[in-house]
Structures are given as C-alpha cells and as structure tokens.
C-alpha cells in the first residue's frame, strides 16, 4: 500500500504539471488574445514543425517517467515467494467465507472455516462501524507473509482491502491469488468491489492482525 501511495503522489506531480500548464495557457490566451485586446488574429500561424515535435516528445518523456516506477511496483506486487500461511476467501451472495486450511484440529479433524456476515442496523452496538463491522472476522498474524486465494461460488465478487493495497476479483471457477505482509497490529476494513446483486454493498471485509503469539493462542481456542 505504501508503494501505491508513493506512486500515486509521483504521478500526481506530473498530472499537476500538465494541468497547470494547460490552464495557464488557456488563461493567457483568454486574457491576452481576446477580441477586445487583440484585433488582428495571427491567421497564418498554422504550422510549426519544431513545436509539434517538442509537444510530441515532451509527453513521451513524462510518460516514461511515470512508467518506470509503475512497472517496478507492478512486478514487485506480484512476487509471491514462500508465503507462510494461506487464507482462502470465498465470495457468496452476499457474504464472505474464510478458510484457514493450514490449521487442522486433530481431535475433530476440522480446519478453520467460518462465514462473515454484515451486522445490519438493528444488531449494531454503540461504537461499531456501521456497514463495515461483521459478526466474525478474520484474524491474521502480523509480520507474516500471507497468501490470499480468492474465488467465488456464484457471481463475481471482489475482495478489496484498500488499507492493505489488495483488490482481486473473485471469479467463479477461478482461483486468484495475492499476498500481503501486514507490518503492524490493527483492524483493516474493506468492501466488495464488483456488482454482485442487491447485497453488493452489504459484504464488507474485516481483517484484524494481531501478534503471532496471540494469533496462535486464538487458533487453539477455535
């Protein structure tokens, strides 16, 4: 996520440069070349080879300068090397279902699977975030390389947690993968980001990341 913010700020610089340039030129045209100030139009000013080359090359250079950090970030994002843990997030209409299949309860022979529903307005307690808080949410350990595998059981959903910089479509019949390392404890919210029917706005995602010890003791209790 930090990379995305930095790239965004980088690109914003060039964007502001271009927008300010265009607005400046239009304002100077409007102020200096209107019919009250300038009675004779420069009607033969129709070509300019050097100028045209300049304004073709200059955007190319700006695009190159935008593209280099962009490609670096893109290829960096896709390095999924040796994740320590896998979380499966399965989209249903209209809730998410999480499976942490790395942990097997040897007595009952079950892995961790649970559904995550939105708390609607009647069930909310004071202090809970409306439309973002869920009944059971995902606990993950901090400073661990986690791989998310996303799919869907019925229509296309989208697993998006903007604070962690992830957004992947949950396509039925397809497994999409992304990876995350969360560097600090905290809660991270997200919402489903692909139209999936009437409950599209009612499928939030809540991830809470805790220390590894707390996480493991939490798992034991499950």
């Amino acid at each position, binding site marked *: 996520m930090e990379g995305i913010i930095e790239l965004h700020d980088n690109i914003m610089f060039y964007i502001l440069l271009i927008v300010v340039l265009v607005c400046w030129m239009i304002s100077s045209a409007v102020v200096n070349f209107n019919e009250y100030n300038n009675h004779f139009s420069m009607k033969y000013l129709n070509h300019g080879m050097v100028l045209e080359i300049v304004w073709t090359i200059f955007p190319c250079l700006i695009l190159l300068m935008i593209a280099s950090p962009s490609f670096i970030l893109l290829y960096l994002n896709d390095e999924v090397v040796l994740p320590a843990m896998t979380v499966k997030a399965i989209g249903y209409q209209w809730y998410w279902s999480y499976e942490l299949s790395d942990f097997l309860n040897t007595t009952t022979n079950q892995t961790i699977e649970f559904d995550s529903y939105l708390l609607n307005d009647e069930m909310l307690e*004071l*202090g809970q975030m409306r439309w973002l808080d869920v009944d059971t949410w995902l606990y993950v350990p901090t400073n661990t390389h986690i791989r998310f595998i996303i799919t869907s059981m019925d229509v296309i959903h989208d697993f998006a947690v903007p604070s962690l910089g992830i957004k992947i479509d949950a396509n039925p019949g397809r497994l999409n993968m992304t990876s995350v390392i969360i560097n*600090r*404890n*905290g*809660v991270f919210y997200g919402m489903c980001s692909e139209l999936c029917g009437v409950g599209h706005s009612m499928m939030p995602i809540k991830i809470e990341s805790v220390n590894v010890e707390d996480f493991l003791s939490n798992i034991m209790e499950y």
Partner: protein
Amino acid sequence: MLRSQRLINTSVRRLQSTSLKQYAQVPITVGSIKDISTRWERMPTAEQSLILTKLKARQTQPWTELTPLEQKAAYYISYGSWGPRKPEYAEGDVGKVALGFLGMFSLAIGIFYTFTTYVANPKPASNSIEWQVAADEYLKSKNANPWGGYSQVNQTGLTK
C-alpha cells in the same frame, strides 16, 4: 467575378456617374446624418442605401472637403458597433446572467434542503456524536491509524 457581372457593374456605373457627380459636390444635409449612431439601425432600407450612395460619392473628394459630421457618419456605418460588429455582451448582460445563475443556485439549495429535511429518511443512529466517539475509542484501542484522522467528530475542515 463573372463576365456578366462585370458588364452589369459597368453599365450601372455609367448610369450612376451623372448622379454621382452631383452627390459628390454637395455636402449631405445635417438632418439626414445627425446622430446617426442612434438612428441607423431603425432606418428604412431605402434611406440607408441613399445615404450610402451619397457618402460613397462624397468620399471621392479629398477628405478635407467632408464635414466632421459626414466623417463621423462614414466611420459609424463602416466600423460602428451595429450589425456584424454588435458586441457579444450588451450592456447589463453580465448582471442578468449573474442574477439568473444565482436564482437557479438558490433554487437548487431550496430543493436540496427540502429533500434532505422533509422527504428523505433521517440519517442512521450511527451518525450521532456519541456513536462516533465510541467508534473512535474502538479504533484507537485496535491501533488503527487512518490517514485522515479517526472520525468526523473532531474534524475542523470544510466538510464538517
């Protein structure tokens, strides 16, 4: 120009040459061209073309022969702000546009206020101050640190 047009022009010129000489010698009467800037647009076409013909004839003389009134009339007819040169923004247009815009803007404010106060359902309970403060406490306890601050309760900016 086509040949037929040239022929017609020369014959017209020949017909007009006598009357042109008469028009050229005599200054145009004051009454017909006084205050021409206020009268020109409402003048009937025949009178307009008569004054044009007379002025064209007078302008064949050296310019010092023309009376000041004739000079002003010639300038107004050719370059005055009527017809093609009518200004894009007439007097008072800016005020009218501003007034109309402000009127519609206030209508929009009225519609917005009426809708949000009387038609729309009220905001849900989670927008109240107590709820927002409690949500802030929860987030702080969980070490969440969003860039824009915790909630709108303590916000001091534009969109309070």
